[in-house]
């Protein structure tokens, strides 16, 4: 009991002498506000980043690749913007770090808050991707009217490393056709037994298609061909609007 009094007295003495001071209420209010602001900012950044990833997957035709067999799937994984995906995952980790300090998050298994965050960020990104935000900014970046993020948009505008070419079919026969891209460049496409045509679509002159294969002197040995639908071209794919 004596010890109790001693510690209480010691602390009381420090309080009276001014050696021990309590932090003000406004300090804690400000700290909470900053913490909430950090969560909101990281959340917005995550949504922006993921919607941008979805956007560049579309404009580069990367999301059509898994429909073109194992080779298409492999090319799809190689072509994914891994840097952006890793940055997005780091954002998610930071979000979880901030969120798990709150009662509603830590009382439940981590999985629940992670799934909730992924769902929120995922659904919001899909919605943002449906707006004209990214295509508008991409256009501005093309005209050098977008400061700060202009380079990012220009850099991801056309990812050619995955050997995918988009254009309109001309002069088609059984084993080949000409592919006219948006710059009016003509590429000669060979169709072989190894060529996988998505869902065995019937190809016709005038069809807009994505051809996958290695380009060699304006000739492509196609390993995959995927037709691009009209509504998709008009509504969701800014690059295809050129046709």
């Amino acid at each position, binding site marked *: 009991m004596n010890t109790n009094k001693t*510690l209480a007295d010691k*602390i009381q003495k420090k309080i009276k002498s001014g050696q021990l001071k*309590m*932090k003000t209420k406004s*300090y804690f209010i400000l700290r909470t506000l900053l913490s909430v602001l950090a969560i909101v900012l990281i959340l917005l950044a995550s949504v922006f980043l993921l919607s941008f990833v979805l956007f560049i997957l579309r404009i580069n035709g990367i999301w059509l690749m898994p429909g073109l067999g194992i080779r298409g799937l492999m090319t799809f994984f190689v072509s994914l913007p891994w840097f952006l995906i890793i940055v997005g995952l780091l954002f998610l980790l930071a979000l979880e770090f901030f969120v798990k300090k709150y009662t509603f998050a830590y009382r439940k*298994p*981590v999985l629940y808050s992670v799934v909730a965050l992924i769902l929120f960020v995922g659904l919001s990104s899909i919605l943002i991707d449906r707006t004209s935000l990214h295509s508008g900014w991409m256009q501005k970046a093309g005209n050098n009217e977008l400061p700060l993020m202009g380079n990012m948009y220009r850099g991801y505008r056309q990812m050619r490393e995955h050997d995918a070419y988009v254009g309109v079919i001309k002069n088609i026969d059984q084993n080949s056709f000409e592919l006219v891209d948006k710059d009016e460049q003509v590429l000669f496409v060979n169709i072989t037994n190894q060529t996988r045509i998505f869902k065995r679509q019937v190809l016709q002159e005038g069809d807009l298609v994505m051809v996958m294969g290695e380009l060699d002197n304006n000739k492509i040995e196609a390993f995959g061909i995927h037709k691009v639908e009209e509504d998709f071209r008009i509504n969701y794919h800014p690059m295809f609007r050129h046709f």
Partner: protein
Amino acid sequence: MIGINEQSKDEDIVEAVQQGQTEFFGLLVTKYEKAILRYAYKFLSQRQDIEDLVQDVFVKAYTNIQSFDLERKFSSWLYRIAHNTFINALKKRDKQPLLFFDADTLFPHPIAKEKSDTLIDEKQVKAMLDECLQKISIKYREPLVLYYLEELSYQEISDIMQIPVSTVGVRIRRGKEKVRLLCKGKGYEYK
């Protein structure tokens, strides 16, 4: 704020302190010093600086008292400060990195019933804890101490350790099993 004395509710005392009647903070120190000291001895094992650490807990509690939400329980808030202080002291001593996620906290577990032990079982567990507690890891030692020795609920332990309530149940069950195995040689036969 009038009528604050040793019998007053913790939260009423805190409210008085928050409003500037700092002389009442001593009542909280007197009331909780023994409990925090006991928690520290069980949690940290043999250390020279335990009393300094306990003093540090109360210093931090006073410094941060304006952040205390009067709707919540003061004891849980104080234990949370003690938990952080002791964990930091252990990390400093053992130079252990902080784990961001523990596998136990990731997935849902069925919530074990609180008070599932009979009175005799509970006495046995407490006796075993006195004997063998220091031999098990902090991860299991802390919930066992808080549950059996400090007699806190799963919910309170969840708030102190900031882990899911179901994980508290899992750690207590596993910890009890570990203590049972470790204490076997000492003649305890808790089942």
